[in-house]
């Protein structure tokens, strides 16, 4: 027994030594000259951030740790982990998370100072909540009308009807194809057509901020619902819930439809088509205003190194070189104005840029999270042939009830 105890003590001693080694290492990291900031990023942006981080490390002697995550996971992980103190100092994110992040109290305001003038106003507006800027924007994205130049030329159709005429004249299987997310419905892709009827999701106040008042009810919304129905399974059939993202891209890429509505991320799915990008045509008479999404970098409200992290954002990422590296790593429309002008020499980017200038920021209020399921489902049902006005108004009633809590 004593022998065993002695060995036990030996084991414990060696364990202490082993454990000691590891604690020595980590304490050096926090106290020595190697201050550390942690940045959450997705795979596409990691190389560009790594380049900016290398400059920063050289200049300040701090360490930048990049943690790669799925873009879809970032929002919930950030909300869950920042309050526990385990979150990062900075994360990549989309602007429509902002409401959720603010109500969770996990983001800090940032002050770009003079650098703010270098960014597109719509990008700064999107990252602004209740008059405060919460993120460094770096890219814009929106959807636009993409057309097959060999079938219908590169001229922008003047309206929905004009587009359908041209599409029918092209003699393809379908005049037009649009992703409805299969049976799920896709209010996002359809939003340009919806706003051309004057039916925004939420009403905007004078300063452009979204209120929680649902704006897509009333005669405008009903007109849009009737349009969906008239072009759905019970009508012309141009809109169909059999089309999901992949089928949409396949039909367009194989030349079975000369027009589609898609974002810049889908361009790589059209290798066989000579494409032109134009603003979405109006179906209801008003200008079609698709959603504009903005990506940027958020600063954690619980960061222990907020000085360092802000320095990285404002003085190292808000520069033309860093923004160019981000653009080259993942080509989206840059939020940095001079860079946006520069890359607009590419006609495809210019087309999306033009579409984004008509667009409206996607609402970033937390209530938007309640909209998607109901909205998508109602559109899918109407396209499938449900009675349009009652289905649409039922959705509006449900949505208002759900927002009221």
């Amino acid at each position, binding site marked *: 027994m004593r022998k065993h105890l002695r060995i036990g003590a030996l084991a414990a001693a060696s364990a202490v030594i082993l454990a000691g080694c590891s*604690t020595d290492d980590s304490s050096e990291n926090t106290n*020595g000259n190697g201050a550390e900031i942690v940045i959450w990023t997705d795979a596409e942006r990691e190389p560009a951030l790594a380049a900016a981080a290398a400059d920063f490390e050289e200049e300040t002697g701090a360490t930048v740790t990049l943690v790669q995550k799925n873009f879809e996971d970032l929002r919930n992980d950030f909300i869950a982990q920042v309050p526990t103190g385990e979150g990062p100092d900075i994360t990549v994110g989309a602007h429509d998370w902002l409401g959720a992040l603010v*109500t969770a109290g996990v983001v800090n305001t940032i*002050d770009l*100072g003079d650098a703010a003038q270098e960014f597109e106003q719509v990008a700064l507006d999107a990252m602004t909540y*209740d008059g405060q800027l919460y993120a460094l924007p770096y890219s814009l994205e929106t959807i636009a009308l993409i057309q097959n130049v060999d079938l219908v030329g590169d001229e922008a159709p003047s309206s929905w009807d004009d587009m359908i005429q041209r599409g029918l004249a092209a003699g393809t299987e379908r005049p037009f194809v649009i992703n409805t997310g299969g049976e799920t419905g896709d209010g996002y892709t359809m939003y340009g057509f919806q706003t051309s009827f004057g039916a925004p999701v939420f009403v905007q106040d004078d300063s452009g901020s979204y209120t929680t008042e649902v704006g897509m009810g009333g005669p405008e919304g009903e007109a849009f619902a009737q349009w969906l129905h008239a072009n759905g399974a019970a009508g012309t059939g141009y809109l169909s819930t059999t089309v999901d993202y992949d089928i949409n891209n396949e039909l367009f890429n194989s030349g079975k439809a000369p027009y589609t509505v898609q974002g810049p991320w889908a361009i790589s799915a059209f290798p066989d088509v000579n494409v032109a990008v134009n603003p979405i045509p109006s179906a209801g008479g008003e200008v079609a205003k698709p959603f504009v999404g903005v990506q940027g970098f958020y600063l954690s*409200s619980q960061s222990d190194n907020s*000085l360092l992290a802000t320095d990285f954002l404002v003085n190292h990422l808000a520069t033309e070189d860093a923004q160019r590296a981000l653009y080259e790593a993942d080509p989206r429309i840059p939020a940095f104005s001079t860079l946006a002008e520069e890359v607009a020499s590419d006609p495809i980017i210019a087309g999306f840029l033009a579409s984004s200038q008509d667009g409206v920021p996607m609402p970033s209020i937390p209530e938007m*999270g309640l909209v998607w399921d109901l909205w998508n489902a109602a559109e899918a*049902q109407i396209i499938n042939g449900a009675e349009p006005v009652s289905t649409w108004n039922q959705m509006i009633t449900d949505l208002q009830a759900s927002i009221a809590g």
Partner: protein
Amino acid sequence: MATDDDRLPDSGRHESHARGWRGFGWGFMVKLVIMAVVNALGLTVILTAYRTESWVILGASIALLLVADIVYFTKRALPLKYLLPGLTFLFVFQIFTLGYTGYVAFTNYGTGHAGSMEQAVEAALIQDERRLPDSPSYPLAVVEQAGEIGFAINADDTVLVGTELSPFEPVRGAEVDGSGTPVEVPGWEVVPRASVLSDQELQATVVGLRVPFDLDEGGGSVRTREGTTGVVYTSSLEWSPEERTITDTETGVVYEASDRGNFVASDGSRLATGWYVGVGFENFVRAFTDATLAAPLLEVALWTFAFAVLTVASSFGLGLLFAMIYNDPRVRGRRLLRTLFILPYAFPAFMSALLWRGMLNSEFGVVNDLFFFGADINWLGDPWLARLAVLWVNLWLSYPYWFLVCTGALQALSGETLEAATVDGAGRWRRFRSIVLPLLLVSTAPLAIASFAFNFNNFTIIYMLTGGGPAFLGSSSGLGSTDILISAIYNISGVAGGVADYGLASALSIIVFVVIGIISALAFRQTRKLEEVQ
């Protein structure tokens, strides 16, 4: 041990006292190394937990490590030596998760209620502090005097120095560099930027420091965010920890901390950020009484039972049928055919579900094209067809399992019993009803219960095949006709990007856990009776 003895012939064989000193032996040395590693890991966890002040983890890991050392370094507690690793994992991965879910179920943790009250106050103050619209940006340096930190700013070529309590005053004889940043301030020591950046405590002080121009409250004060420029900010909210109120000094509105985890003013307006609080049994009550939730949840619950029962029944039936057919010696090529029948089981379920989703597409899918003469049947868009589709795909996925199980059970049946029954004049059906099925059920009924519990929570197939759709009409719940309880909980939890309510989702998962627990317990009791009959 035989090899040990062979290697050590002298010490082993010739000594009469076999228990004498022979070194520790291989086993003991291995145990020692493993325990050293375990202790090292445990101590690392303990030290880390101590440093990050996670007291629960600290206590639990100390207890676990002590138990491990005691169990493995005493000669008693032999059964525990085998059980401890399993028990540890059970504790860490099951009990802890269960306990935590239980805890969350009694809170309102979710969108708008994510952190503690202190964090909510901090967030409110952060969100309220605004840059003065016409504030210039002053080049700034961090300065120190007898341990007190202050700012030196360059305002129109005059260097001003101030601290939290003493407003900015001009200093004479200060020097600035090319960019206008003060580098030499008489009476103060300029803190180099590198040491500001590398010292976390100093960083916190600098970020938290507000230096006023004058002590009059309204004028705003200078702060810096990155340590090189100072900008004037104003703030109108004031936090009073004693009264637990936040007061807007501009409008006079007082926001009181409510017991729901929000700062609410008397006119009903509230500050954006809340914190999570305990809400008692409210989440459980809501699941049954909230009109927007109760009706869809009831429908979802009924469908969940139907889905689980029908899946088990249909796949058991089909599996048994095939097993009996391919157990018959008259069928040729049985081995090959059996292998083919097991194939659906070999594919990952989520891939099969995705494939079926494509095949069931009403316009482009092969199911309509090949089997229904190109008819336009919207399998996934109609509530009842979608349910049928889910059942069909799940049958396709799970009958191979029952085919395997039943084949094994059939082959284990004694031929004599069957022969005796035949001699007694029992027909084919009679033999199946009275002999084969009861004997088969003894071994397969517990598996059927497990399969029921699995399908009750079969998230993959619902999520991948229909996503819960088509959605219920006229309901603000966001749930759909093929949603089962677990996918409904996922939807309610808001993980998919909606408005999250983890408290309600946790409460629902606990209800589901209890339901499955009760059903399984009852069913297992029934099976025991089945065995007694034998």
